[in-house]
C-alpha cells in the first residue's frame, strides 16, 4: 500500500472550514471550536457521496414524540410483525431491521413499538430529497432514506465535502433527523463509507486508502454480498476482502456469473457505475421556483416557467444527460401539490423543447388558481448524446 505524501485537509463539519491539517492535529476547529472534524488527503477533491438517513423511520417518530427521544424505539408491527427500523438505542440491545417483532421485544422488552406511518416518511423523504437536489446536480435515490449524490459538476466552486457537511446540518435543522455521509471516488466506496461513520457520520474513503481500508473487512461488508454469498465465498476460502482480491476472475464468474466480475472489482474498491445510472432507480434532474407572491395568470407565470426550463436544460447539459420524460409540479396557494406528466417525443436537453412540452399541460391547469411554486423535473435520464436526435427537417 503506497501512501502519497499529500498533506491531509481537514473539514469542520459545523462551520465548513477546510484547511490543511496542522501538526500536531488539533482536537477542535480553530475557527468555531467544534470537535467534529474530518481529515483526509483527498478531502478537497472527492465528489461522489452516499447519503443515508440514520434509523430513518425511528428518527422521524422520535422527532414527533420528544418524550421517546431517550427511549428505545422500534418502528414496525403492522406488516407481518417484523422490525422495520430500530433506533440506535434499541440497536444496542441487538434489535435489527427485519427481525421478528417478538424476538426484538425479547431482546429489548422496554422498547416502545410504533406503528409505521409510511405517508409521513415519504413526505419527509421528499423534503430531504429536495435538499439533496439543491446540493448536487445529480441525485440518484436508492430508497426512501438513501441516495447517491454526484457533486463533480457542481455549479459552485465550493468543495463537495463542504456542501455535504452543510446538507447534513440543513437536514437536521429543517427536517429534524440526522444523516450519515460517505464521501469517496465511486458509489460503492461511498456506500461503505456512509456505513462506517453511522450514525450522524461523515466518513471519507479516498483512492489512496481504499485498498487498505477494505483489506481486513469481511467479504460480507461489500454491497450486495449477503449472508448466502458470504458463506459461498468463505467456502471458497475468501473470508476477508484482501483474500477475495486473490481470487481468479474466471473462478468467480463461473460461480457467480456476471456478478462475479463485479465482486472482484469491488474487492479492489473499483466501481464504474455512474450516479444517475442505477438499475431501475428513480433518477431526476429538476428545478423549481417558489414565488414571493402567488401567481395566477399565464402572463405572470410564463416568464417564471421559462426560467425554470432554462435551469433544467442547463443542469441536464452540465450533467450531460438527456431527459426522456418530464413532470410539471404545481403547488397551489393552499400548498396542495400536484404533478403532471408531460409527453416528450424525443429525449432532450433543450430549453425550448422542455418549454414546449410543459406548456400545454400548464395551460390546462391555469384556471385562475394561485400558485406558489412551480417545478419541472426530468426523468428517464439517458446519456447526453441521445438528446435531441438529428431531424431530417430541422437542420441547425
Amino acid at each position, binding site marked *: 500500500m503506497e501512501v502519497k505524501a499529500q498533506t491531509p485537509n481537514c473539514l469542520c463539519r459545523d462551520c465548513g472550514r477546510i484547511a490543511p491539517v496542522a501538526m500536531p492535529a488539533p482536537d477542535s476547529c480553530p475557527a468555531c471550536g467544534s470537535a467534529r472534524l474530518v481529515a483526509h488527503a483527498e478531502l478537497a477533491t472527492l465528489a461522489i457521496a452516499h447519503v443515508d438517513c440514520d434509523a430513518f423511520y425511528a428518527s422521524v417518530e422520535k422527532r414527533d414524540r420528544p418524550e421517546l427521544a431517550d427511549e428505545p424505539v422500534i418502528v414496525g408491527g403492522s406488516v407481518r410483525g417484523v422490525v422495520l427500523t430500530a433506533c440506535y438505542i434499541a440497536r444496542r440491545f441487538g434489535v435489527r431491521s427485519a427481525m421478528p417483532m417478538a424476538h426484538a421485544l425479547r431482546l429489548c422488552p422496554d422498547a416502545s413499538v410504533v406503528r409505521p406511518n409510511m405517508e409521513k416518511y415519504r413526505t419527509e423523504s421528499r423534503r430531504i430529497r429536495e435538499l439533496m437536489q439543491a446540493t448536487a446536480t445529480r441525485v440518484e435515490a436508492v430508497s426512501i432514506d438513501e441516495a447517491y449524490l454526484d457533486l463533480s459538476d457542481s455549479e459552485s466552486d465550493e468543495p463537495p465535502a463542504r456542501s455535504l457537511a452543510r446538507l447534513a446540518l440543513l437536514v437536521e435543522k429543517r427536517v429534524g433527523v440526522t444523516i450519515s455521509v460517505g464521501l469517496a471516488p465511486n458509489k460503492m466506496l461511498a456506500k461503505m463509507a456512509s456505513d462506517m461513520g453511522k450514525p450522524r457520520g461523515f466518513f471519507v474513503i479516498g483512492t489512496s486508502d481504499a485498498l487498505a481500508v477494505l483489506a481486513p473487512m469481511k467479504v460480507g461488508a461489500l454491497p450486495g454480498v449477503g449472508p448466502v454469498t458470504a458463506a459461498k465465498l468463505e467456502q471458497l476460502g475468501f473470508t476477508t476482502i484482501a483474500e477475495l482480491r486473490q481470487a481468479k476472475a474466471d473462478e468467480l464468474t463461473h460461480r457467480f456469473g456476471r456478478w462475479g466480475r463485479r465482486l472482484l472489482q469491488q474487492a479492489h474498491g473499483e466501481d464504474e457505475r455512474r450516479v444517475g445510472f442505477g438499475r431501475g432507480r428513480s433518477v431526476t434532474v429538476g428545478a423549481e421556483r417558489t414565488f414571493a407572491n402567488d401567481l395566477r395568470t399565464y402572463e405572470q407565470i410564463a416568464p417564471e416557467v421559462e426560467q425554470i426550463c432554462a435551469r433544467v436544460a442547463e443542469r441536464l447539459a452540465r450533467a450531460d444527460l438527456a431527459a426522456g420524460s418530464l413532470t410539471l409540479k404545481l403547488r397551489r396557494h393552499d400548498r396542495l401539490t400536484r404533478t403532471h406528466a408531460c409527453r416528450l417525443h424525443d429525449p432532450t436537453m433543450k430549453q425550448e423543447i422542455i418549454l414546449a412540452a410543459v406548456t400545454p399541460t400548464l395551460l390546462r391547469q391555469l384556471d385562475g388558481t394561485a400558485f406558489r411554486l412551480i417545478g419541472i423535473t426530468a426523468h428517464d435520464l439517458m446519456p447526453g448524446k441521445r438528446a435531441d436526435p*438529428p431531424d431530417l427537417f430541422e437542420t441547425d
Partner: protein
Amino acid sequence: MKLTIERAALLRALGHVQSVVERRNTIPILSNVLLRAEGTKLSLSATDMDIEMVASLVAQVSKSGATTVPAHTLYDIIRKLRDGSQIELETTGEKGLMTLRSGRSTFTLSCLPPEDYPLMAGGELAHNFLLSAGDLKRLIDRTRFAISTEETRYYLNGIYLHAAKSDQVDMLRAVATDGHRLARMEIPLPEGAAGMPGVIVPRKTVMELRKLLDEMQDDVSVSLSDTKIRFTFAETVLTSKLIDGTFPDYDRVIPSGNDRILEVDCKLFAEAVDRVSTISTEKSRAVKLAIERGSLTLSATSPENGTATEELEVRYSAQPLEIGFNSRYLLDIAEQIEGEGARFALADAASPTVVRDSADASALYVLMPMRV
C-alpha cells in the same frame, strides 16, 4: 325495421365498421352503428367524425327502416352467436328498442334516433382512379411504419399521397416520415390520377384501410378532393377527412450524392442487427456499424449489460466508415425489403443514409444516423 340476415355476413361487415368506433365517446351516438334496411340490403355505418365506414350486405328485409344501436355491444353479441345461425333484427315501435333474435337467444338493445346520426357531409370528390388491392397494400406497407406520432407536427401524422415524376415517368407516390426516417414508395400513376392534389391520409385511416385490404383482392376505387378521400370496395366504403396541413418538401432531405455504397444480404443483416441490439438497454437501442472493405462489424454496448459484436461479409469498397443507427429503424426497413439484398448509400457518420431494395427501385428509405 325488420329483417333477417345470416350471422357470418353480418359479423364480417360489422367487424369492419365497428373498428372505426372509438371506445370512449363524449357524444353518445358516436358509440352506435347506424343500421338502415331498404329493398334487399342492410347497410351499416359508423363514424368517429373523421372517418366514416359504410358496409352493405344482402338481407331479407320485411320492413324498411333505420335505427342506431351500440356498435361494440352488437358486435360482441353477433360474435358469440352460433356459427351458421340466422339473425332477426326488429325495431319495436316508439320505445326506442331493437330486438335481436337468433335461435333461442333474444336481446333487446336501446337505440338512438337515426336522424341524429352524424353523416359526413357530401361534397364532390373530383379525382377518381382505380388501384389494385395489391398496389394499395404495398403503398401502405412500405411507408406506414415511418408515420410520426408527434402531435406538434400533425402534418406528419399520415401518409402523403401525391403524383410526382420519377425519371420523367408519372408516378403515384406515398411518403411518410417522423423526422428520423423517411419512407417513399411509388407505383406508375393510375389513369385519372393526373392532376390530383397531394393529400395527407391520417394514420387511423391508413390502419383501417389496411385492415380492409387484408380480405380484399379486387380493385379499389379511390376518389378524393383536397379535404376528403374515399376508398370504395365491393361492399364497403371508407371515407376520411384528410390532414389539413402542408407536407414538408421531402425531396430536399433525400441525399443524392451519397457515394459510399454498402450492399448486404438483407436477411443476414436483419438477424445480426436483432442479435446485437439485444445487449442494448436504452430505449433507442443503438447499434454501431463499422464498415470497411468487404466487411461490416455490428456492435452495441451497454454500461450494465456488456457488449456485443458480429461481423458480416458485405460488398463495400469505399473509405472505412463508422456510423450508428437505431436498430429498430434498421429492422423496420429490412422488414420491407423483399429481395435478397439491401443497398445502403452512405455519406458520413452525421448525414442521412439512403437504403433501397437492390432488386426493386420502387421503394426508398432515408435514415438519420444516431450518435454512437
